[in-house]
């Protein structure tokens, strides 16, 4: 597998909302490269006709009734908020669409 580039690392960091520094990008690029090379081993296994496992339990249709449960007290809901304001969670301006 090809080496992961600095640009790709920077891209991954942005996608995962991590404000990594330039030094970190260099460090991570090397480490991620090693890790990705190691895990690429999964490509060596013959998995033709083998379905992917997405769940570790053999259950289907686990559903709940449409019945109201107790909510959190508003004070508790906002208790951990870094910047509560007017009973809402305040955040700095939103510039871009969700990504």
């Amino acid at each position: 597998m090809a080496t992961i580039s600095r640009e790709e690392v920077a891209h991954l960091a942005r996608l995962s909302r991590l404000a990594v520094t330039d030094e970190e990008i260099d460090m991570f690029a090397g480490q991620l490269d090693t890790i990705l090379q190691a895990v690429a081993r999964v490509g060596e296994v013959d998995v033709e006709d083998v379905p992917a496992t997405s769940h570790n339990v053999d259950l289907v249709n686990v559903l709940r009734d449409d019945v109201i449960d107790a909510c959190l007290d508003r004070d508790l809901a906002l208790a951990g908020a870094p910047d509560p304001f007017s009973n809402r969670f305040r955040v700095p301006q939103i510039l871009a669409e969700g990504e």
Partner: protein
Amino acid sequence: MESLADRTAHELSGMLAAGEVSAVELTKDALGVIERTNKALNSFLTVSDVQAMSAAKAVDEARARGEKLGPMAGIPVAVKDVLVTKGVTTTAGSRILEGFVPPYDATAVQRLRQAGAIIVGKTNMDEFAMGSSNENSGFGAVHHPWDLSRVPGGSSGGSAAAVAAGQAVAALGTDTGGSIRLPAAFCGLVAIKPTYGRVSRYGLIAFASSLDQVGPMTRDVTDAATLLEAISGHDPADATSLEDPADFTTGLDRGIKGLRVGIVKELFTEGMEPEVAAAVRRGIDQLVSLGAQVEECSLPSFKYALAAYHVIAPAEASSNLARFDGVRYGLRSPDARDVTEMMMRSREEGFGDEVKRRIMVGTYALSAGYYDAYYDKAQRVRTVVIRELEAAYENFDVLVGPTAPCVAFKLGDRVNDPVAMYLADIATIPMSLAGIPAITVPIGLADGLPVGLQIFGPHFSEAQILRAAFALEQSAGFDSRPRRDFAHSAAPQAKPGQP
């Protein structure tokens, strides 16, 4: 110095029932040990002394009223800080949750409380359960009670150290790729990762959803069975939780005559420490003397389990950890000009390096263009592992191998080599991928440090593997009494996890 909390839960349960000792006395002893030893071990992040004493008092009063109490009533238990506790700070070992106080209890914690157990505090761990040495904590590394210059294993390092040092009688840990079994093996404890779905994950701060499980860490098999029973059971709040009845204590001492045991040769890896391999083999010999039918077997897919795990787990983690963004709780970086910058800086400041690495690997593995080659491929390899195990269990009742390829290593040994660190989990990962139950039992020493033998069975076979573990434990005679003499008390200052 002696402490009541040095005894096993089943021993203490008898003493409590007989009135020889009170829950308050017992809890006081445990809290005393914590006070004297936490600085050296750094195993507890939060000590709940007030609540613990109050809960102990309540248990004593209930007993005085003649109420029938269960086997965990009055027993001091430590809880890994990855399980939310209502009103008590919960950090998952991360600065991003520093000071976070959950408004609800994890189901496993609720069940502990209902059983009358005394929660003495929240234990240190690798950040978000990502690690094998407890050196990735945002609040400093945990030290091995037998040798402060060594790691206790991870990610449930704090819980392991707590039990091994007698700060608590038992602890809850969690396991995603070996995080409960590895530290137990390193510290000479018994621990079990149950069948996936056996214990509710509601309130377990998620690392890898399809792998995470809560389990007991104790000094003996009887305690492990008892604690596991107390926390098991279906939970409507967890859609992946199972309905299977949990009776793990009946017939624990039935013995293993005729039990078909398979030694998985792939678990004896090339890089394994020879002393450890030898100790495990001696343990397996004991199984033979106990009447088991032991044979070698091969599960070739195990060679790929580590790689598959290190795609699946980070992928799920990259999604599970996205919620830590400084909006609703946790660390928020100040002075950001817009919300995206706020999120990026908060996560940059709050997460440690290992967490960042795994988030990026996970994001990569799920990206368009890489999904097929990585995530999808890994989940198929997982199916191969599952199928191989299913086939093996046609011929064997249980399978065995080492829990770890090494004994507890020195702090700092592997921190700069992520892949070397990952290799510590090489023997525990396959069982996580398959969701089958696996138990580790201390069976001897190598270079003076504990070695664990791992026994794993098909889904729902906890009772059987506990029985095998019990027999082995009786035979091995490992001394699991707590140690806190801190022979190397002049150990170097713990490496702080992250600035």
